[in-house]
């Protein structure tokens, strides 16, 4: 588990390139910085300055090596590397509120932007006019879209929103792809069709994630719950009300296990049992606390009595987790969502941690990653 502290400010969002040698992140301002791995160090190699507002979402397309960024200035830019310099292309999103999240589709021929304008912009490149065009999905979204995730078939899109619901839409663009085959989520998929909607109530849906096969959808909500729905069985949604603070990000690491992290500053494992339709807490994934302090001297005892009216050492003062502030984003590094071997978390403490699944499994006794 390697923790690297990039900045003192929160990392708003991050994205890795194809071979994980470079990471693009936003240091809570209008820019995107790209850092390159240099042995054990990270050196800044590029600064992408074009946005006029905070950059809220970054996604790096692995095959075509393009970066898409979206910001609070209601714009999105697609960056391409030309002669060692990243050149931006403006994408007209036609939104009147800040953009919140952006994701390339698996085949990288389009991307989706969620915004505070209560709609999702699906953008694709139109060859004749040589510019990016967008189509909107509006109904029945009633509030800001906080998170997006594409289904592996390149057509279905899951969206988590502030109106307390998680939905699956079809983002089929006939100009760039052929008709998709039927999936467990549905067979008729015209553009903008809603194929699934979770029950209301609960809290804002912070993060959504499809499993590797696309048959399962997981989301975390602000009322400290995690839920998993299976395509086809839309009536049964398994939820787990956790005893921790709300989770802000979630990802599948195998077909049945999810890792989520949030305001409690450490990642947590959940295991889903499809046969029973149940979701259980698998364990807290974190570096075990350092060995307890040795005996306490008489002088320290009196000092504690003086300061804190108690003789013990205040062990709750410091967080024992690697991250010292909320974790806001989690991304899979190696192995994909089917057999993830490493994943990365970034948070509001300006730090990035790379977690190794094998090491975690070995060190946590009761952990079982199904």
């Amino acid at each position, binding site marked *: 588990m390697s923790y690297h502290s990039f900045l003192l400010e929160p990392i708003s969002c991050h994205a890795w390139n194809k071979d994980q040698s470079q990471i693009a992140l936003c240091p809570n301002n209008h820019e995107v910085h790209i850092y390159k791995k240099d042995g054990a160090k990270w050196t800044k190699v590029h600064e992408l300055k074009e946005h006029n507002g905070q950059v809220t979402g970054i996604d790096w397309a692995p095959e075509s090596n393009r970066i898409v960024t979206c910001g609070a200035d209601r714009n999105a830019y697609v960056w391409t590397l030309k002669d060692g310099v990243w050149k931006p292309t403006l994408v007209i999103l036609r939104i009147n509120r800040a953009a919140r999240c952006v994701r390339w589709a698996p085949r990288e021929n389009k991307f989706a932007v969620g915004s505070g304008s209560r709609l999702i912009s699906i953008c694709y490149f139109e060859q004749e006019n040589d510019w990016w065009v967008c189509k909107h999905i509006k109904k029945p979204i009633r509030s800001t879209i906080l998170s997006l995730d594409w289904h592996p078939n390149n057509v279905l899109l899951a969206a988590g929103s502030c109106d307390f619901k998680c939905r699956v839409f079809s983002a089929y663009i006939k100009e760039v792809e052929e008709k998709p085959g039927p999936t467990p989520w549905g067979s008729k998929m015209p553009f903008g069709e809603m194929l699934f909607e979770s029950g*209301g*109530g609960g809290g804002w849906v912070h993060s959504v994630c499809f499993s590797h096969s696309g048959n399962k959808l997981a989301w975390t909500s602000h009322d*400290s719950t995690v839920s998993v729905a299976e395509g086809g069985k839309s009536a049964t949604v398994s939820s787990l009300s*956790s005893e921790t603070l709300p989770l802000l990000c979630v990802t599948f690491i195998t077909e049945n296990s999810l890792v989520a992290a949030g305001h409690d500053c450490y990642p947590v494992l959940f295991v889903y049992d499809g046969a029973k339709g149940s979701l259980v807490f698998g364990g807290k994934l974190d570096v075990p606390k350092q060995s307890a302090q040795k005996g306490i001297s008489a002088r320290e005892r009196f000092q504690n009595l003086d300061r804190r009216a108690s003789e013990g050492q205040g062990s709750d003062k410091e967080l024992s987790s690697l991250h010292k502030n909320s974790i806001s984003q989690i991304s899979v590094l190696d192995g994909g969502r089917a057999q993830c071997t490493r994943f990365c978390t970034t948070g509001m403490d300006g730090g990035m941690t790379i977690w190794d699944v094998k090491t975690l499994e070995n060190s946590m006794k009761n952990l079982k990653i199904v």
Partner: protein
Amino acid sequence: MSKATLSDRFRKVDVDEYDENKFVDEEDGGENQGGPDEAEVDALLRQGNMNGALLAVLKNPPINTKNQNVKDRAAMLVVKVLSSFKSSDIEKAVASLDKASVDLLMKYIYRGFEKPSDNSSAVLLQWHEKVLPVGGVGSIVRVLTARKTV
């Protein structure tokens, strides 16, 4: 000398009501929820069956109904039951509840904090201290984020 001569009644208009994009919660039919059964709960209390009274009073919570009286009556009944517990019995009673009931109990506890009466806050604080390790901060987050509550 600088009194406005034009009408200023427009200042009292709540413009958010007229916003066509205003978020309206879904209506869930809650007309049949009458709250916990008072007679049943009183009977159990008189018999001295504290745990039974607790389970009974946590049944049928008036979450979806818009009738404020029903909600007030339910809240008072719950506080009555919670006050009649001995301090040493609280922990066992909490341990006998399932997850959903623990969340519901936490909601009632906070509702009781809103309208304190006599000794109720002290009692509720004792209950809160015992419910917290079982429900965790997650149960408190659910009290805060619930759109429809007791």
